[in-house]
Structures are given as structure tokens and as C-alpha cells.
């Protein structure tokens, strides 16, 4: 316990130092939000495996490490070539890049976006006259009860703010890229706010990548508001190094007649956790949340999702697929609540896992709680291996069993990758996934 207290004190000290650094730089509302969160953090403790929501994910190894937060932009670790491998041409002129948690203006470019679309660093709003984020920032992410969110909120500095104006359909995907590139162990607190105004349409890619192999920690929080009639496609791509730690939280609020589609992909990190909560605030809402995780070696990945059906005539569908090799471990916990009065809810949920080794483990818990009548709901989970008959079929055509396994495994992931609407993101992922599988399955 003494150990845990020390770890918390380290982070508290970081909060105090941060407040001092930012003094005089920000609008009072932002300072006040930070202070409230810092106060909550004081009263909270880091989760342990005794907490139901963290039963299978032990964050102790992460807390034991000493991470340093950086305040100055340092681009020395960002080689053009590596940068290219984690960006994509469709968003060359519609992207924001953050390095070690700090906004990198020289790597960002939003010139391709139509007038009226706001895609900018938070501090631009925080010090300017546009107070737009004030009402939205912190309105969904629960810094009162969630320790990691409290910490992130207490340390809000730079961050990505996206506002799609009313009635506009934006063609170009908007890319929010959070890089870690440092020669020491650093921590960053990425923060994203996306507001799709009434009747608007957009695609946002939020991605996390490491350009070095040094252990680092991203504690990320994203808030998404999908206003009436708006439609948002949200890709979340976590491809950090296998020594990284990643704790991410995404909170989504959907209004009348809106559509939100998320695809959350986790490939990297030693320990990663993504919590995704979607809240329905009105009727006729459509929610699609898909996920793909591929873990090998001793990686640990945890996805906790919840969809709260509180109103009638809403639909949700969820497909999370996982591929595990080595001694990797995956946790899936998906809650679907259908509240009283949420008539004619249509909710489907499925978690499918493919184990490539006998030593990988999955803890999956799809949960469905129905309090309304006249609903159509299904949920399920599978954990299986590759089909011997399929391997034989491929082998009977001259494909070695190693390659057959890789091909079939890739096919398993393909169902989700195919759904990505941005061509080079899709193709890039195809390559990344194939590489990762080949490495793990030791195909030449």
C-alpha cells in the first residue's frame, strides 16, 4: 500500500508542477476544470484487480515505472520516413500531430479542410476569444470517478478539438495523430474533443504510434458528441511499441437520429486498455462499435465497452474480434443496457477470439441487461482455434501450413479491416497486420 501511495504522490506532484507551468496561459474555465479534476484525483486511488472493472488487468507494472512528462516540443526523434508510415495521404492536409503530448504545428496541416470546419489544438481556443470547447470539454469524461480520466483532465494541456459545422459533410478524413518519440520513459495525456453538429457528416481517425522502442505511457481521453442527425465515423488505431502502456477512454453522447460508428484497433503496447461508453440521449439512434485486437508475446489487451439504450427505436451492433498468440492475454467486457421504456431496441453484440497458441488466454464477458419489452437483442462470445479442415484445404494446394495459418488468421481480421472506408488506412493495416502475424507465426 505504501508503494501505491508513493505512486499516487508522484502523479499528484506532476499535477502541481503542471498547474504552475500553465499559470497565466489559459482561460479561467480551463484552469478551473483542471483544478476540479486534480481535486478528484486526490480522493481517488488507482484501480487494482480487486475492482470489478479491473479484475483481469493489473496496472501495477505500469504504476511502478517512473515516467516523465515533457513540456517542450522535441522533434529530433521524428524521422520523416517513420512519420510517413503512420500518416496517410488522404489526410495530408487535414491532420493534427502531437509529439509526446505536445502539439507539433510544423507536422500538422489543416489547409485542405473547408472553411468553417474547426480542427485545431486546444490551446488555441484556451487562450483565444472562441470559447467553444468550454461547455463540451469534460462534460462526458468522468473525472469525478475515474482515476485515469481525472489525471488526464488535471493535466490537460494541448489536445485536439474537432468541430464539424451544422449540415456539412466533410469528405477528407481528419487525422489526429499522437506520437511518442523520446529517448526516455515519458508519459503523455492525449485529449480529444469531437463535436459533430446537427446534420453534419465526417470521418475522424485517432491514432497512437511510437517512433521508438522506449517504454512510454499514454493516458488518453476522448469525448465525442454526435448531435441530432449527424453521422460520425471514428477510427481509433493504437499501434504503439510493444513496450508501451496505453490507457484510453472514449465517451460518446448521441442525440436524436444520429449515427456513430467506431472501429477500435489495438495492436501495440505491453498493457493496453480501451474503455468505450456510448450514451443514447434520444430516439432513432444508430450505433456501430467494432473492434479488432491482435496481441502476441506477452501483450495484454483489455476492451471495456458499454452502450446505454435509454430511448426507443435505437439500434446498436458490435463486433469485436481478437487474435492472440504466444502468452498474450485479452479481456473483453461489453455491456449493453436496454433501459425501461427503450422499446423496439435492436442490439447485437458479438466477441470472437482466435487463439493461435495453447498459452494465450481470453477472458470475455458479453453482458446484456434488458429492462424493456419488445426488443430484439443478441449477444455472444466465441473462443476458438483455426479450423484444421481449412488448413488442409490450403495445404492441398501447395501452401505450407505456416503460411496457411497466417492466411487464415489474416482472413479472420480481414472482415473488420475491409470495413475501413479510407483506402490507404485499410491497405496500411493489411500490411501491418500481415507483418505482425508473420513475425509471430515465423513465416519467412
Amino acid at each position: 500500500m505504501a508503494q501505491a501511495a508513493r505512486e499516487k504522490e508522484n502523479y499528484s506532484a506532476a499535477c502541481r508542477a503542471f498547474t504552475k507551468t500553465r499559470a497565466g496561459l489559459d482561460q479561467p474555465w480551463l484552469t478551473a476544470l483542471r483544478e476540479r479534476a486534480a481535486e478528484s484525483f486526490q480522493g481517488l486511488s488507482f484501480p487494482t484487480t480487486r475492482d470489478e472493472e479491473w479484475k483481469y488487468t493489473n496496472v501495477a507494472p505500469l504504476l511502478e515505472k517512473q515516467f516523465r512528462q515533457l513540456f517542450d516540443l522535441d522533434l529530433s526523434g521524428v524521422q520523416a520516413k517513420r512519420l510517413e508510415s503512420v500518416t496517410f495521404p488522404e489526410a495530408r492536409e487535414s491532420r493534427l500531430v502531437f509529439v509526446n503530448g505536445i502539439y507539433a504545428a510544423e507536422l500538422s496541416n489543416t489547409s485542405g479542410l473547408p472553411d468553417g470546419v474547426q480542427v485545431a489544438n486546444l490551446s488555441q481556443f484556451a487562450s483565444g476569444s472562441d470559447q467553444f470547447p468550454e461547455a463540451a470539454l469534460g462534460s462526458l469524461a468522468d473525472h469525478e470517478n475515474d482515476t485515469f480520466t481525472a489525471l488526464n483532465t488535471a493535466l490537460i494541456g494541448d489536445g485536439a478539438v474537432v468541430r464539424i459545422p451544422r449540415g456539412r459533410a466533410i469528405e477528407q478524413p481528419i487525422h489526429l495523430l499522437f506520437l511518442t518519440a523520446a529517448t526516455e520513459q515519458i508519459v503523455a495525456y492525449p485529449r480529444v474533443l469531437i463535436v459533430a453538429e446537427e446534420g453534419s457528416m465526417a470521418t475522424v481517425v485517432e491514432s497512437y504510434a511510437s517512433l521508438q522502442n522506449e517504454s512510454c505511457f499514454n493516458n488518453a481521453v476522448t469525448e465525442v458528441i454526435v448531435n441530432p442527425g449527424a453521422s460520425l465515423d471514428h477510427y481509433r488505431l493504437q499501434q504503439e511499441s510493444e513496450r508501451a502502456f496505453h490507457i484510453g477512454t472514449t465517451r460518446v453522447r448521441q442525440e436524436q437520429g444520429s449515427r456513430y460508428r467506431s472501429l477500435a484497433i489495438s495492436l501495440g503496447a505491453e498493457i493496453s486498455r480501451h474503455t468505450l461508453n456510448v450514451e443514447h440521449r434520444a430516439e432513432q439512434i444508430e450505433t456501430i462499435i467494432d473492434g479488432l485486437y491482435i496481441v502476441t508475446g506477452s501483450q495484454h489487451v483489455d476492451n471495456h465497452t458499454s452502450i446505454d439504450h435509454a430511448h426507443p427505436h435505437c439500434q446498436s451492433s458490435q463486433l469485436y474480434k481478437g487474435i492472440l498468440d504466444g502468452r498474450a492475454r485479452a479481456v473483453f467486457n461489453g455491456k449493453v443496457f436496454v433501459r425501461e421504456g427503450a422499446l423496439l431496441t435492436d442490439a447485437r453484440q458479438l466477441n470472437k477470439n482466435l487463439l493461435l497458441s495453447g498459452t494465450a488466454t481470453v477472458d470475455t464477458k458479453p453482458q446484456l441487461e434488458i429492462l424493456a419489452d419488445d426488443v430484439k437483442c443478441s449477444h455472444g462470445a466465441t473462443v476458438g482455434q483455426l479450423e484444421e479442415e481449412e488448413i488442409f484445404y490450403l495445404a492441398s494446394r501447395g501452401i505450407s501450413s505456416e503460411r496457411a495459418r497466417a492466411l487464415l488468421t489474416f482472413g479472420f481480421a480481414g472482415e473488420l479491416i475491409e470495413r475501413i472506408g479510407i483506402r490507404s488506412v485499410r491497405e496500411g493495416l493489411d500490411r501491418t497486420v500481415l507483418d505482425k502475424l508473420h513475425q509471430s507465426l515465423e513465416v519467412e
Partner: protein
Amino acid sequence: MLEIRNLHATIDGKEILKGLDLTIRAGEVHAIMGPNGSGKSTLAKVLAGHPSYEVTGGEVLYQGENLLELAPDERARSGVFLAFQYPIEIPGVSNANFLRMAYNEKAKHEGQEELDPLEFDDLLKEKMKIVEMDQSFINRAVNEGFSGGEKKRNEILQMAVLNPHLAVLDETDSGLDIDALRVVANGVNKLASKENAIILVTHYQRLLDYIQPDFVHVLYKGRIVKSGGKELALELETRGYDWIRTAVNAA
């Protein structure tokens, strides 16, 4: 080309092949007929190296070498091809990728040049013409959602792409409409050559109207119990298997 001597094979401990002998020379077409459950598919899968079957006795020489020592993919690369009676679906793997990979594995094995996707596309289009298959099948997942007849055509397409020395076609004619039967037969006849051999497992004379076998065998209770020329198939068509059963069971 293929010499099977006194072959015994079991599945889940049950003996299915019980001392089977068969000799096939290059350039020959052999038809294997026989009642349901007699072991025809078992023989085909044992030749392809299906892991569920255990060979408990006998030997199989292919081009003078012990075939049973080779893994299934090695057999395929050295020219053995099995068109399955029930081809399975492989979701998530596209026909084009799968075929190109298979083609290149074999090309590599033979010391020939591998083809890139564009080059392979040309070859594939040409082969698809032979089996009169629509181009839209190229990018679909292997056999996924294919009709019974489409799956069979896809088997012949694979055969056409891989150009095997020894092709075993397990009831490729079942489930085909009249046009498809002709198409499949064409595909097989294109493959037939002095260097290649073909084993046709079939229940019906129809296919043999298109593809003239040099020999017809009856497989019953795990053994070849009768062999003859193409007239044997005609005789079976009119007389059925009872006379063979009686003869075998009396012996």
C-alpha cells in the same frame, strides 16, 4: 506415375481401406466407381495427405518416390491435386490471393518465376475462361456463399491454375448442371496429356461420355474388386452393383 500397393488406412480407429492396389501410368485416365461408403473419398484424401487418416499398411509410390512421406503441401507442389467432393468455404481469404499464393508456391518449387498480382491476374483471367467462370468470383472469399456447382467449378479452376501431374477428381460431376458438366469435362480434357494422369471418382456414366477413361475400377469395402475398360462403366450403369457385391461376398 502412381503405384498403390496393399494400402490400409483408418479413420478414428476404423479401417476403411483394406488392402487396395492400383497402378496408374502417365497419360492414363482412370475412373473409380463403387457404392456409397466404399472408401473412394477416403482413398482420395489419403493420397492428398489428410491428417485425419492414418495409413496402417502398404505403400504409395508417386513418380518412384514414397508419397506418404510427404506433407500435404509438398505433395501438392510436386503435382498431386485433389478436387474435393465437398469443397469447404474459407471466409476472409480471397480467391485471387489464395490462387496466386498457391501458384507461386508451386512455381518456386519448380524453379520457375513467381508472378506479381498483375501478371497473375492475366493468367487467372485466361484460366477462368476455360471453366467459364465469371470474373466477379476473383475477389470473393474462397467458396464462400458459392452454390454447389460453383464450388465444383472453382475446384477445376484451381486445377487449371496449378496444372498438376496427377489429378484426383472426387465426384466433381455431382451437382453440376448439364452445361457445367461439359465445362468441367473440357477443363479436364485440357489438362490430359501424355505426362499427366487423371483419376475420376464418379457414380455416373455421363461424365465418362465426355472424358474417355482408359480403365474403370470398382472400389468396394476398401479394395479394388474389379477392373476393366470403359465398357465396365456401361455395364455398371445397367446392372448396378449387386452382382459385384455377390461375387465379392461369396469369395
